[in-house]
Protein backbone atom coordinates (compact mmCIF):
# COMPACT_ATOMS: atom_id res chain seq x y z
CA UNK A 1 0.00 0.00 0.00
CA UNK A 2 1.25 3.44 -0.94
CA UNK A 3 -0.11 6.34 1.05
CA UNK A 4 0.18 9.96 0.02
CA UNK A 5 -0.77 12.32 2.81
CA UNK A 6 -1.19 16.01 2.08
CA UNK A 7 1.50 15.73 -0.56
CA UNK A 8 2.53 19.15 -1.83
CA UNK A 9 5.25 20.04 -4.32
CA UNK A 10 6.12 23.71 -4.80
CA UNK A 11 8.54 25.42 -7.14
CA UNK A 12 8.93 28.92 -5.74
CA UNK A 13 5.46 30.41 -5.90
CA UNK A 14 4.12 27.70 -8.18
CA UNK A 15 2.20 24.87 -6.53
CA UNK A 16 2.57 21.86 -8.82
CA UNK A 17 1.01 19.30 -6.47
CA UNK A 18 -1.51 20.69 -4.04
CA UNK A 19 -2.28 18.77 -0.86
CA UNK A 20 -2.86 15.39 -2.51
CA UNK A 21 -3.94 12.45 -0.37
CA UNK A 22 -4.30 9.04 -1.97
CA UNK A 23 -4.31 5.44 -0.83
CA UNK A 24 -3.00 3.11 -3.50
CA UNK A 25 -3.29 -0.62 -2.80
CA UNK A 26 -0.38 -2.72 -4.12
CA UNK A 27 -0.47 -4.95 -7.16
CA UNK A 28 -2.70 -2.69 -9.21
CA UNK A 29 -2.16 -1.05 -12.62
CA UNK A 30 -2.96 2.64 -12.24
CA UNK A 31 -3.50 5.09 -15.05
CA UNK A 32 -2.50 8.61 -14.10
CA UNK A 33 -4.16 11.09 -16.41
CA UNK A 34 -3.78 14.85 -16.51
CA UNK A 35 -3.21 17.64 -18.96
CA UNK A 36 0.20 19.14 -19.60
CA UNK A 37 1.23 21.12 -16.54
CA UNK A 38 -1.36 19.43 -14.33
CA UNK A 39 1.35 18.18 -11.97
CA UNK A 40 1.63 14.56 -13.14
CA UNK A 41 5.41 14.42 -13.33
CA UNK A 42 5.84 16.31 -10.05
CA UNK A 43 3.48 13.90 -8.36
CA UNK A 44 5.30 10.90 -9.82
CA UNK A 45 8.71 12.36 -8.90
CA UNK A 46 7.58 12.64 -5.30
CA UNK A 47 6.01 9.18 -5.45
CA UNK A 48 9.33 7.78 -6.69
CA UNK A 49 11.24 9.79 -4.05
CA UNK A 50 13.16 11.62 -6.76
CA UNK A 51 11.95 14.80 -5.15
CA UNK A 52 11.43 15.70 -1.52
CA UNK A 53 7.85 16.82 -0.92
CA UNK A 54 7.49 20.49 0.07
CA UNK A 55 4.90 19.26 2.55
CA UNK A 56 3.17 15.99 3.33
CA UNK A 57 4.50 12.50 2.97
CA UNK A 58 4.78 9.40 0.80
CA UNK A 59 4.72 6.12 2.69
CA UNK A 60 5.30 2.76 1.07
CA UNK A 61 4.07 -0.18 3.15
CA UNK A 62 4.13 2.11 6.16
CA UNK A 63 7.71 3.35 5.71
CA UNK A 64 8.60 6.93 4.84
CA UNK A 65 9.81 6.71 1.24
CA UNK A 66 12.15 9.67 0.85
CA UNK A 67 15.84 8.71 1.13
CA UNK A 68 14.85 5.24 2.22
CA UNK A 69 17.23 2.79 0.45
CA UNK A 70 14.89 -0.20 0.77
CA UNK A 71 12.00 1.70 -0.84
CA UNK A 72 14.28 3.16 -3.52
CA UNK A 73 15.60 -0.26 -4.54
CA UNK A 74 12.03 -1.44 -4.96
CA UNK A 75 11.03 1.56 -7.09
CA UNK A 76 11.66 2.14 -10.78
CA UNK A 77 10.84 5.52 -12.25
CA UNK A 78 11.13 5.84 -16.02
CA UNK A 79 10.71 9.26 -17.55
CA UNK A 80 10.86 10.43 -21.15
CA UNK A 81 14.62 10.86 -20.78
CA UNK A 82 16.85 7.85 -20.14
CA UNK A 83 18.75 8.18 -16.87
CA UNK A 84 22.11 7.28 -18.39
CA UNK A 85 25.12 9.00 -19.84
CA UNK A 86 24.78 9.78 -23.54
CA UNK A 87 28.16 8.19 -24.16
CA UNK A 88 27.20 4.85 -22.61
CA UNK A 89 26.38 1.91 -24.80
CA UNK A 90 23.05 0.17 -24.20
CA UNK A 91 24.90 -2.92 -22.90
CA UNK A 92 26.50 -0.84 -20.15
CA UNK A 93 23.21 0.86 -19.25
CA UNK A 94 21.67 -2.57 -18.75
CA UNK A 95 24.65 -3.81 -16.69
CA UNK A 96 24.21 -0.87 -14.37
CA UNK A 97 20.48 -1.55 -14.03
CA UNK A 98 21.19 -5.24 -13.31
CA UNK A 99 23.59 -4.18 -10.56
CA UNK A 100 21.13 -1.73 -8.98
CA UNK A 101 17.93 -3.72 -9.34
CA UNK A 102 17.46 -6.84 -7.21
CA UNK A 103 14.62 -8.08 -9.41
CA UNK A 104 16.42 -7.51 -12.73
CA UNK A 105 15.79 -10.22 -15.33
CA UNK A 106 18.62 -10.24 -17.90
CA UNK A 107 16.98 -12.77 -20.20
CA UNK A 108 13.80 -10.72 -20.28
CA UNK A 109 15.81 -7.55 -20.96
CA UNK A 110 17.52 -9.29 -23.88
CA UNK A 111 14.16 -10.42 -25.23
CA UNK A 112 12.82 -6.87 -25.01
CA UNK A 113 15.90 -5.44 -26.77
CA UNK A 114 15.19 -7.89 -29.58
CA UNK A 115 11.53 -6.99 -29.66
CA UNK A 116 12.29 -3.28 -29.97
CA UNK A 117 15.22 -3.96 -32.32
CA UNK A 118 17.72 -2.21 -30.09
CA UNK A 119 21.37 -3.02 -30.72
CA UNK A 120 23.16 -3.38 -27.34
CA UNK A 121 26.38 -2.04 -28.89
CA UNK A 122 24.79 1.29 -29.73
CA UNK A 123 25.46 4.40 -27.66
CA UNK A 124 22.52 6.19 -26.04
CA UNK A 125 23.44 9.33 -27.99
CA UNK A 126 22.96 7.46 -31.27
CA UNK A 127 19.38 6.41 -30.51
CA UNK A 128 16.35 8.03 -32.09
CA UNK A 129 13.63 9.51 -29.88
CA UNK A 130 11.53 6.36 -30.22
CA UNK A 131 14.52 4.09 -29.51
CA UNK A 132 15.35 6.04 -26.35
CA UNK A 133 11.76 5.56 -25.22
CA UNK A 134 11.97 1.85 -26.02
CA UNK A 135 15.17 1.62 -23.94
CA UNK A 136 13.22 3.26 -21.11
CA UNK A 137 10.55 0.59 -21.46
CA UNK A 138 13.21 -2.16 -21.31
CA UNK A 139 14.67 -0.62 -18.13
CA UNK A 140 11.22 -0.16 -16.62
CA UNK A 141 9.89 -3.66 -17.28
CA UNK A 142 13.01 -5.82 -16.82
CA UNK A 143 13.66 -4.25 -13.39
CA UNK A 144 10.46 -5.98 -12.14
CA UNK A 145 10.35 -3.40 -9.37
CA UNK A 146 7.47 -3.80 -6.89
CA UNK A 147 6.64 -0.16 -7.67
CA UNK A 148 7.08 0.57 -11.38
CA UNK A 149 6.37 4.12 -12.50
CA UNK A 150 6.26 4.86 -16.20
CA UNK A 151 5.83 8.54 -17.04
CA UNK A 152 4.84 9.08 -20.67
CA UNK A 153 7.42 6.55 -21.82
CA UNK A 154 5.93 6.18 -25.30
CA UNK A 155 7.23 9.48 -26.77
CA UNK A 156 8.40 8.98 -30.33
CA UNK A 157 7.45 5.32 -30.37
CA UNK A 158 5.44 4.39 -33.45
CA UNK A 159 2.13 2.53 -33.27
CA UNK A 160 3.81 -0.87 -33.72
CA UNK A 161 6.30 -0.24 -30.91
CA UNK A 162 3.59 1.13 -28.61
CA UNK A 163 1.41 -1.92 -29.25
CA UNK A 164 4.38 -4.15 -28.40
CA UNK A 165 4.95 -2.13 -25.23
CA UNK A 166 1.33 -2.48 -24.06
CA UNK A 167 1.35 -6.21 -24.83
CA UNK A 168 4.59 -6.75 -22.88
CA UNK A 169 3.40 -4.60 -20.00
CA UNK A 170 0.27 -6.72 -19.60
CA UNK A 171 2.01 -10.07 -20.13
CA UNK A 172 4.75 -9.27 -17.65
CA UNK A 173 2.27 -7.90 -15.13
CA UNK A 174 0.22 -11.10 -15.40
CA UNK A 175 3.36 -13.19 -14.83
CA UNK A 176 4.81 -10.89 -12.14
CA UNK A 177 2.05 -8.85 -10.51
CA UNK A 178 3.28 -5.55 -9.09
CA UNK A 179 2.19 -1.96 -8.67
CA UNK A 180 2.42 -0.12 -11.96
CA UNK A 181 1.66 3.57 -12.37
CA UNK A 182 1.43 4.66 -15.98
CA UNK A 183 0.93 8.25 -17.00
CA UNK A 184 -0.24 8.89 -20.52
CA UNK A 185 -1.99 11.20 -22.94
CA UNK A 186 -2.84 8.32 -25.26
CA UNK A 187 -5.71 7.23 -23.08
CA UNK A 188 -7.69 5.27 -25.62
CA UNK A 189 -4.73 3.02 -26.41
CA UNK A 190 -4.15 1.76 -22.88
CA UNK A 191 -7.40 2.37 -21.01
CA UNK A 192 -8.29 -1.33 -21.04
CA UNK A 193 -5.10 -2.16 -19.12
CA UNK A 194 -5.89 0.07 -16.16
CA UNK A 195 -7.56 -1.26 -13.06
CA UNK A 196 -7.85 2.19 -11.52
CA UNK A 197 -7.67 5.68 -12.96
CA UNK A 198 -6.45 8.81 -11.23
CA UNK A 199 -7.19 12.12 -12.94
CA UNK A 200 -5.31 15.16 -11.72
CA UNK A 201 -5.98 18.73 -12.66
CA UNK A 202 -4.05 21.78 -11.51
CA UNK A 203 -2.20 19.78 -8.90
CA UNK A 204 -5.29 18.26 -7.32
CA UNK A 205 -6.93 14.87 -7.60
CA UNK A 206 -10.10 15.26 -9.62
CA UNK A 207 -11.03 11.60 -9.55
CA UNK A 208 -9.68 8.25 -8.35
CA UNK A 209 -11.82 5.34 -9.42
CA UNK A 210 -12.02 1.89 -10.86
CA UNK A 211 -11.43 2.32 -14.60
CA UNK A 212 -14.25 0.01 -15.57
CA UNK A 213 -16.72 2.00 -13.48
CA UNK A 214 -15.97 5.06 -15.62
CA UNK A 215 -17.10 3.32 -18.78
CA UNK A 216 -20.68 4.27 -19.38
CA UNK A 217 -20.31 7.08 -16.85
CA UNK A 218 -20.79 9.66 -19.58
CA UNK A 219 -23.59 9.73 -22.13
CA UNK A 220 -24.19 11.97 -25.13
CA UNK A 221 -27.78 12.96 -25.76
CA UNK A 222 -28.65 14.23 -29.22
CA UNK A 223 -31.92 15.53 -30.61
CA UNK A 224 -34.19 18.57 -30.95
CA UNK A 225 -32.99 21.45 -28.74
CA UNK A 226 -36.12 21.55 -26.58
CA UNK A 227 -36.17 17.78 -26.01
CA UNK A 228 -32.47 17.70 -25.12
CA UNK A 229 -32.84 20.64 -22.74
CA UNK A 230 -35.75 18.99 -21.02
CA UNK A 231 -33.88 15.71 -20.68
CA UNK A 232 -30.68 17.18 -19.27
CA UNK A 233 -32.44 19.45 -16.76
CA UNK A 234 -31.27 18.45 -13.31
CA UNK A 235 -28.35 16.38 -14.66
CA UNK A 236 -24.70 17.36 -14.78
CA UNK A 237 -23.90 18.62 -18.27
CA UNK A 238 -20.21 18.53 -19.19
CA UNK A 239 -20.52 20.04 -22.62
CA UNK A 240 -22.99 21.03 -25.30
CA UNK A 241 -22.98 21.94 -28.95
CA UNK A 242 -25.78 22.90 -31.29
CA UNK A 243 -26.31 23.05 -35.01
CA UNK A 244 -29.55 24.57 -36.21
CA UNK A 245 -32.31 22.97 -34.19
CA UNK A 246 -30.21 20.01 -33.08
CA UNK A 247 -28.31 19.86 -29.83
CA UNK A 248 -25.83 17.33 -28.49
CA UNK A 249 -25.14 17.36 -24.76
CA UNK A 250 -22.66 15.26 -22.81
CA UNK A 251 -24.05 14.23 -19.45
CA UNK A 252 -22.00 12.95 -16.49
CA UNK A 253 -23.42 10.05 -14.53
CA UNK A 254 -25.12 6.91 -15.72
CA UNK A 255 -28.60 7.23 -17.19
CA UNK A 256 -31.07 4.52 -16.08
CA UNK A 257 -32.45 2.36 -18.94
CA UNK A 258 -35.98 3.60 -18.25
CA UNK A 259 -34.82 7.20 -18.81
CA UNK A 260 -33.10 6.15 -22.04
CA UNK A 261 -36.29 4.47 -23.25
CA UNK A 262 -38.33 7.57 -22.42
CA UNK A 263 -35.77 9.78 -24.16
CA UNK A 264 -35.76 7.60 -27.25
CA UNK A 265 -39.54 7.76 -27.39
CA UNK A 266 -39.16 11.57 -27.36
CA UNK A 267 -36.85 11.41 -30.38
CA UNK A 268 -33.48 11.52 -28.59
CA UNK A 269 -30.52 9.34 -29.43
CA UNK A 270 -27.96 8.24 -26.89
CA UNK A 271 -24.29 7.58 -27.45
CA UNK A 272 -21.43 6.31 -25.29
CA UNK A 273 -18.60 8.47 -24.03
CA UNK A 274 -15.18 6.80 -23.86
CA UNK A 275 -12.66 7.28 -21.10
CA UNK A 276 -10.60 9.70 -23.18
CA UNK A 277 -13.59 11.84 -24.10
CA UNK A 278 -14.74 11.84 -20.48
CA UNK A 279 -11.27 12.95 -19.43
CA UNK A 280 -11.33 15.78 -21.97
CA UNK A 281 -14.70 16.98 -20.73
CA UNK A 282 -13.72 16.74 -17.07
CA UNK A 283 -10.48 18.66 -17.47
CA UNK A 284 -11.23 21.15 -20.23
CA UNK A 285 -13.09 23.72 -18.19
CA UNK A 286 -12.95 24.88 -14.62
CA UNK A 287 -16.65 25.03 -13.90
CA UNK A 288 -17.02 21.28 -13.89
CA UNK A 289 -14.16 20.57 -11.56
CA UNK A 290 -16.42 19.82 -8.65
CA UNK A 291 -18.38 17.18 -10.55
CA UNK A 292 -16.31 14.17 -9.67
CA UNK A 293 -15.20 15.15 -6.20
Amino acid at each position, binding site marked *: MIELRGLTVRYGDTVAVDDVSLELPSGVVYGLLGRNGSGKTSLLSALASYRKPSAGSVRVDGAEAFENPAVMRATTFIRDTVDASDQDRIRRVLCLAAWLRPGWDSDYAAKLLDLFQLDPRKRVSALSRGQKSALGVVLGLAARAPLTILDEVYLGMDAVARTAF*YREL*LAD*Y*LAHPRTIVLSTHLIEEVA*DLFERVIIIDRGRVLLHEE*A*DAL*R*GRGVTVTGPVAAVDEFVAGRTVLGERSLGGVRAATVYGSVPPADVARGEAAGLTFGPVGLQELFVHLTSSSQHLEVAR
Partner: protein
Amino acid sequence: MFDDRGPIYLQIADGIKNDVLSGALKEDEQVMSTNQYAAFYRINPATAAKGFAQLVDEGVLYKKRGIGMFVSPDAREKLRAARRERFFTEVVDPMLAEAARIGIGVEEIVRHLGAPR
Protein backbone atom coordinates in the same frame (compact mmCIF):
# COMPACT_ATOMS: atom_id res chain seq x y z
CA MET B 1 -14.50 -6.61 -29.03
CA PHE B 2 -15.44 -4.16 -26.26
CA ASP B 3 -17.08 -0.77 -26.69
CA ASP B 4 -17.66 2.29 -24.52
CA ARG B 5 -21.29 1.61 -23.83
CA GLY B 6 -20.65 0.26 -20.38
CA PRO B 7 -18.24 -1.50 -18.07
CA ILE B 8 -16.10 -4.16 -19.76
CA TYR B 9 -16.86 -6.70 -17.04
CA LEU B 10 -20.53 -6.68 -18.06
CA GLN B 11 -19.57 -7.05 -21.71
CA ILE B 12 -17.38 -10.03 -20.77
CA ALA B 13 -20.27 -11.60 -18.88
CA ASP B 14 -22.62 -11.03 -21.83
CA GLY B 15 -20.12 -12.51 -24.28
CA ILE B 16 -19.75 -15.70 -22.24
CA LYS B 17 -23.52 -15.96 -21.81
CA ASN B 18 -23.90 -15.76 -25.58
CA ASP B 19 -21.33 -18.53 -25.98
CA VAL B 20 -23.27 -20.69 -23.53
CA LEU B 21 -26.55 -19.97 -25.31
CA SER B 22 -25.12 -20.75 -28.74
CA GLY B 23 -23.54 -23.94 -27.47
CA ALA B 24 -20.00 -22.75 -28.17
CA LEU B 25 -19.43 -23.38 -24.46
CA LYS B 26 -20.86 -26.69 -23.29
CA GLU B 27 -22.15 -27.63 -19.86
CA ASP B 28 -19.38 -28.53 -17.42
CA GLU B 29 -16.82 -27.27 -19.91
CA GLN B 30 -13.92 -25.32 -18.42
CA VAL B 31 -13.73 -21.65 -19.40
CA MET B 32 -10.51 -19.67 -19.85
CA SER B 33 -8.76 -18.51 -16.70
CA THR B 34 -8.98 -14.81 -15.93
CA ASN B 35 -5.30 -14.41 -16.81
CA GLN B 36 -5.72 -16.19 -20.13
CA TYR B 37 -8.78 -14.10 -20.83
CA ALA B 38 -6.98 -10.87 -19.89
CA ALA B 39 -3.99 -11.72 -22.08
CA PHE B 40 -6.18 -12.72 -25.01
CA TYR B 41 -8.41 -9.65 -24.96
CA ARG B 42 -5.66 -7.30 -23.70
CA ILE B 43 -7.51 -6.13 -20.65
CA ASN B 44 -6.70 -5.76 -16.99
CA PRO B 45 -7.05 -9.13 -15.19
CA ALA B 46 -9.06 -7.54 -12.37
CA THR B 47 -11.66 -6.49 -14.93
CA ALA B 48 -11.80 -10.01 -16.34
CA ALA B 49 -12.05 -11.46 -12.82
CA LYS B 50 -14.99 -9.19 -12.08
CA GLY B 51 -16.82 -10.42 -15.18
CA PHE B 52 -16.26 -14.03 -14.16
CA ALA B 53 -17.31 -13.32 -10.56
CA GLN B 54 -20.55 -11.86 -11.90
CA LEU B 55 -21.21 -15.09 -13.82
CA VAL B 56 -20.51 -17.18 -10.72
CA ASP B 57 -22.95 -14.98 -8.78
CA GLU B 58 -25.59 -15.52 -11.45
CA GLY B 59 -25.01 -19.27 -11.44
CA VAL B 60 -23.80 -19.40 -15.05
CA LEU B 61 -20.34 -20.58 -13.98
CA TYR B 62 -19.16 -22.56 -10.99
CA LYS B 63 -15.72 -22.77 -9.42
CA LYS B 64 -13.63 -25.81 -8.71
CA ARG B 65 -11.06 -24.76 -6.19
CA GLY B 66 -7.56 -24.83 -7.58
CA ILE B 67 -8.70 -25.99 -11.01
CA GLY B 68 -10.76 -23.22 -12.57
CA MET B 69 -14.24 -22.24 -13.63
CA PHE B 70 -16.79 -24.32 -15.48
CA VAL B 71 -20.16 -23.81 -17.14
CA SER B 72 -23.02 -24.75 -14.81
CA PRO B 73 -25.07 -27.77 -15.96
CA ASP B 74 -28.31 -25.77 -16.06
CA ALA B 75 -26.80 -22.51 -17.33
CA ARG B 76 -28.08 -22.78 -20.88
CA GLU B 77 -31.66 -23.54 -19.85
CA LYS B 78 -31.68 -20.70 -17.30
CA LEU B 79 -30.27 -18.21 -19.77
CA ARG B 80 -32.73 -19.27 -22.45
CA ALA B 81 -35.66 -18.83 -20.07
CA ALA B 82 -34.46 -15.37 -19.06
CA ARG B 83 -33.85 -14.26 -22.64
CA ARG B 84 -37.21 -15.60 -23.81
CA GLU B 85 -38.92 -13.51 -21.18
CA ARG B 86 -37.19 -10.38 -22.44
CA PHE B 87 -37.59 -11.21 -26.14
CA PHE B 88 -40.93 -9.50 -26.66
CA THR B 89 -40.21 -6.37 -24.62
CA GLU B 90 -36.65 -5.92 -25.88
CA VAL B 91 -36.81 -7.16 -29.46
CA VAL B 92 -40.40 -7.27 -30.72
CA ASP B 93 -41.84 -4.14 -29.10
CA PRO B 94 -39.10 -1.79 -30.39
CA MET B 95 -39.50 -3.34 -33.84
CA LEU B 96 -43.24 -2.67 -33.75
CA ALA B 97 -42.60 0.90 -32.58
CA GLU B 98 -40.23 1.49 -35.50
CA ALA B 99 -42.76 -0.08 -37.88
CA ALA B 100 -45.46 2.27 -36.60
CA ARG B 101 -43.15 5.29 -37.06
CA ILE B 102 -42.57 4.49 -40.72
CA GLY B 103 -46.09 3.28 -41.50
CA ILE B 104 -45.63 -0.46 -41.74
CA GLY B 105 -48.73 -2.29 -40.55
CA VAL B 106 -48.81 -5.48 -38.51
CA GLU B 107 -50.33 -7.40 -41.46
CA GLU B 108 -47.36 -6.47 -43.59
CA ILE B 109 -44.99 -7.74 -40.93
CA VAL B 110 -46.91 -10.99 -40.58
CA ARG B 111 -46.86 -11.41 -44.37
CA HIS B 112 -43.09 -10.89 -44.32
CA LEU B 113 -42.64 -13.41 -41.52
CA GLY B 114 -44.80 -15.95 -43.32
CA ALA B 115 -42.94 -15.56 -46.61
CA PRO B 116 -40.58 -18.39 -47.51
CA ARG B 117 -36.95 -17.46 -46.84
